[in-house]
């Protein structure tokens, strides 16, 4: 069966954040606790997360924000170049997933539809998957003691539905479907944009991290959208760091053998 995924065409994203809310609605996620604080005279906590970074106040993905819309203002001083880019980010469901590779307890699994999700009943909350993700997707929630991230709406896609964010997206910027079909669509859109003069337009995610099941059409370089140009899946380097460490261990062993032998012999042979 083909992997399911999403194609995010950022050129038609209006930055409305419907995807962020629709995700929370379907997945039962609360407001991000760190965005709210107690205020005297009120029985509820009040939002205090104004960032001043364009219209982006949620700032990053977290255990309760599985989607995050970025706002990039590109204006020169006389406004002859004026562009405001929007892009909705989420877990990319990498085919070579750092989080899954790092999980010591098989809480992070890949299903038959290619999506990577955290089995909440298995996760022990060691948090090692968090730094293992090259995209900063997965995050810990104090309230559950476990990590959370986008599941690609595991329940929906295994019941024949699309993801909640794609369903809500008013402009079709987020499209859900079979990855090969989405790629065809992405390629066609890229050709269309290039013809219209968007020279820097590019597709991000065909090769990165073993191929991303959630991939993007950007109008500018990936870094502009906060995505690494060449993301490295940490475990791809594992054999090198292991090797160097073993070498160090051998060196120390040899050193110890020499250090203690010297003294020992001196004493033994008066």
């Amino acid at each position, binding site marked *: 069966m083909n992997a399911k995924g999403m194609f995010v065409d950022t050129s038609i994203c209006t930055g409305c954040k419907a995807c962020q809310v629709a995700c929370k609605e379907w997945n039962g996620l609360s407001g991000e606790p760190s965005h709210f604080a107690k205020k005297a005279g009120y029985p509820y906590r009040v939002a205090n997360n104004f960032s001043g970074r364009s219209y982006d106040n949620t700032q990053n*993905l977290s255990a309760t924000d599985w989607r995050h819309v970025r706002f990039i203002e590109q204006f020169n001083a006389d406004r002859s170049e004026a562009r405001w880019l929007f892009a909705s980010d989420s877990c990319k469901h990498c085919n070579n997933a750092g989080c899954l590779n*790092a999980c010591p307890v098989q809480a992070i699994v890949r299903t038959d539809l290619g999506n990577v999700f955290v089995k909440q009943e298995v996760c022990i*909350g060691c948090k090692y998957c968090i730094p293992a993700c090259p995209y*900063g997707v997965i995050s810990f929630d104090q309230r559950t003691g476990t990590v959370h991230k986008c599941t690609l709406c595991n329940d929906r896609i295994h019941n024949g539905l699309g993801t909640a964010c794609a369903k809500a997206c008013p402009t079709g910027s987020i499209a859900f479907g079979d990855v090969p079909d989405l790629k065809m669509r992405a390629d066609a859109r890229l050709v269309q944009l290039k013809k219209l003069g968007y020279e820097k337009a590019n597709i991000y995610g065909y090769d990165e991290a073993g191929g991303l099941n959630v991939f993007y059409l950007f109008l500018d370089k990936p870094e502009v959208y906060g995505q690494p140009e060449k993301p490295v899946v940490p475990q791809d380097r594992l054999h090198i*760091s292991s090797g160097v460490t073993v070498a160090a261990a051998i060196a120390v062993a040899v050193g110890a053998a020499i250090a203690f032998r010297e003294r020992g012999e001196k004493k033994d042979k008066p």
Partner: protein
Amino acid sequence: MMALESQAPHWEWYYIALYFFIGGVSAGAYFIGSLIELLGYEKHREVSKAAYRIAFPLICITPVLLIADLGRPERFWHLFFSNGPGSIYTNHTSPLSVGTWALLVYSGMSFLSFLNVQVEDGRLALPALKKVHEMFSRLPHKVYAAIGSFFGFFVAGYTGVLLNTTARPLWAGTDPWIGALFIVSAASTGAAAIALVMARRQALAPDTARSLQTFEQPVMIAELAIIVVMLAVAGRYAVPLLTGLSGVLFLGGAVLLGLLVPLGRQFMARAGTAERDGGVIITSAFILAGSAFLRIALVQAGQS
């Protein structure tokens, strides 16, 4: 290169960095002790014994630290049987998974070595423990010393590999050197811990002291060298390690107090003979503290 947006795991330094430190000391000590036993340096039998007496109690602390940092401590057993009791699980791409198993094996070996020492000195009183000792007494000591020494090194080093195997700018940027750094640091602290314990009991023979120093010095120099290489490799990603509180801990604590001061003291003492007990205690304490600072700084800076 590194991810621009990777997230910090928010590990608490007093659990994780201290685990790295204590595990390192234990493993380093055990390694020295077991190596002496394996190579048959009978003269240093006291060193071996001191090492085993240090290694096991220290390693007993570590699971507490590790489990305490889990979001769901009651599920720690998933590390071994994530598919349910009876079904053993290990993830070979996860240093954490493999390291946990290594820690388990190492704990067992260090326990047996510890029992041996106790029996040898006639200090084992508990009948149950005696029984355990008898069960394994047919096994040559060198077998589990060898296994323990292998996994001990694993315990000392995997924590560094674990940090390298992430997308955090500092940890990934210093790849592949933290593992090696932790290995040499574990070795020097292991030796320092042995020296400290023996000196306190005034059981440190001058020759032994000299042997330990002879071991420590090149290791500490290597440690310095690895630090230099690591910083060079990391480039701008090393900034968090060199600035702020982490910078103070790292440069002032780990490098200055933990490496340069002990090296200097030992160097000055060499003019005469080995340091005397009091001096050894102070120097060793510096080494140990420096190693703790090193790990705290690395863990904290990597998360900032």
